[in-house]
């Protein structure tokens, strides 16, 4: 197994109190596999990713428990200096907004080449040649001419390709893409997603795709983990989850996708607001918004029930059977 996150806990200490952002998340990704992590803002999906990368802002953030095994090593036990060598070389991250993720005062060639200068000790000239090669790789037209241009001279889609190129530069074993297409036009989204999926297959990398967009996930992901209030509430192979969700929250997410054949009907919305992380509801965190909530949900926190025999599907709902049956 390439990456195993086990029972990860992250909290943020603020003036108003302690926000529990991640509460016992476990997931794993294998080489060549794509795991989609789905959830609303504040569900802890990005914080988990930051903890894996080791770029959590400490303080206020703090990892209070769990382990992150990457190729057998527990990253949380590594010294910061060793950790830094892992970042970029063995695991890399693609951010949401490519314009703000690229340094405006450096040309894209310099920024791409920097990967080789920092990690491989290459000369600037060789690094530039590598940069052109990478830009070709992610299909930026006229790479040779454009390598000296600055980020603002590229379109949104091209910039995201550059970010992908930077992440791929050293052929890492794992890539974490945090909402890689959210800032892009819908038409460009598909192209960038396809490129990412293709390169992932080519390099046989593990990919964690963080998103709140169910549409993006459907084509490229192998498995989905749905997060709510810092916990995983459902994991499933992607097609099983779309066909029949086993958690009312997933059900709600699927129902709130606009559909062509429902034209004229009011769009479904999950009632209520995402939970306050400083005061997560007792029992099942989703119960105040759940149409299926019973008394037991108010008091007992549901464990992850095995939905499929082989453990490929799990759901943290006391009533997963009923949810699955009604799907």
């Amino acid at each position, binding site marked *: 197994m390439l990456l195993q996150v086990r029972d990860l806990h992250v909290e943020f200490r603020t003036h108003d109190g302690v926000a529990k952002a991640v509460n016992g998340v476990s997931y794993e990704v294998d080489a060549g596999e794509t795991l989609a992590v789905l959830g609303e803002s504040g569900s802890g999906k990005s914080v988990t990713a930051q903890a894996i990368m080791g770029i959590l802002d400490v303080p206020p953030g703090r990892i209070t428990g769990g382990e992150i095994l990457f190729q057998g090593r527990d990253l949380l036990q590594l010294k910061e200096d060793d950790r830094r060598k892992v970042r*970029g070389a063995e695991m890399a*991250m693609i951010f949401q907004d490519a314009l703000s993720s690229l*340094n405006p*005062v*450096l040309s894209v060639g310099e920024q791409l080449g*920097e990967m080789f200068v920092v990690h491989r000790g290459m000369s600037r000239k060789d690094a530039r040649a590598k940069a052109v090669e990478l830009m070709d790789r992610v299909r930026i037209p006229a790479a040779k001419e454009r390598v*000296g241009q600055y980020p603002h001279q590229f379109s949104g889609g091209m910039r995201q390709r550059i970010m992908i190129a930077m992440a791929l530069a050293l052929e890492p074993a794992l890539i974490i893409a945090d909402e890689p297409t959210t800032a892009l036009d819908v038409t460009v989204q598909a192209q960038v997603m396809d490129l990412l999926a293709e390169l992932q297959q080519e390099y046989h990398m593990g990919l964690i795709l963080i998103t709140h967009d169910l549409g993006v996930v459907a084509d490229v992901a192998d498995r989905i983990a749905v997060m709510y209030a810092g916990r995983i509430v459902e994991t499933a192979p992607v097609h099983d989850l779309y066909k029949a969700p086993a958690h009312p929250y997933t059900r709600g997410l699927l129902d709130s996708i606009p559909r062509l054949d429902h034209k004229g009907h009011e769009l479904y919305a999950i009632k209520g607001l995402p939970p306050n992380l400083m005061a997560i509801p007792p029992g099942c965190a989703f119960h105040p918004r759940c149409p299926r909530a019973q008394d037991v949900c108010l008091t007992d926190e549901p464990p992850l029930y095995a939905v499929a025999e082989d453990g490929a599907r799990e759901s943290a709902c006391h009533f997963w059977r009923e949810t699955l049956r009604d799907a």
Partner: protein
Amino acid sequence: MDLAMSEAETLEKTPGGPLGTGPAGKPRSLWSDAWFQLRRNPVFLVSGLLILFLVVISIWPSLIASGDPLECHLSKAQEGPEPGHPFGYDSQGCDVYTRTVYGARASITVGVCATLGAALLGSLLGGLAGFFGGWWDALLSRIADIFFGIPVILGGLVLLSVVTSTTVWPVVGFIVLLGWPQVSRIARGSVITAKQNDYVQAARALGAGNGRMLLRHVAPNAVAPVIVVATIALGTYIALEATLSFLGVGLRPPTVSWGIDIANAAQSIRNAPHMLLWPAGALSVTVLAFIMLGDAVRDALDPKLR
């Protein structure tokens, strides 16, 4: 965000457009873009030429003044202009024109050295405070506050009155000592802003260490406000040197300084106003030139004002 995107989009479709690319179609960085703006700004051209002239005469004053500023004839004290001595003579019978030309050297030296010192010290301390935060930041900010609290004139009178050196360095040191907190506050603020940019986080996620992040990603994006403040401060530092010299605690004779000449001339302003006019005029023009330059630089480096 949308606006920025669509702007970039259009730019891409029009290579050689007005903003993103230079006349030769070569990509332009933030700095070359600022330089392009500056070159077309008349305020910059006027102040730039003036400053160039001042710098040249402060290095080679004999280019335009053949006399010796310390060669004085008491018999000619306070006399008006005559051929070869267009500005007349001062109370000691020294040639006012020669002294005014030679006075530029002290002002420019003090201004440039004090600005460099304050800018380097201030941006180093402020930058580190902003980047690393925590107790280092708290300590440094309080120290800066203490220096902010020292009144300039009173501080100068107290600290510089005990100095006996006749060089410019005590004055430069004093100005650096009082000037760095201003730069350090600006540097701290802009480093904190730059540090929060996504690309710094992205660089970190791709394995950059602290040094590289600070030098390559934070500093280049935080330096513009420091440059602007430093350029404007240069003018005020020159004025401050003249003020201290006027009060008798700045530069000392035999150093030739506009401040000293103004102090001497002030005593006989009613008998011989020409003695005051020239050094005071030169001082005003110099300060004005640097402040204009600072304004032009700010306009070029702060795109929000454009």
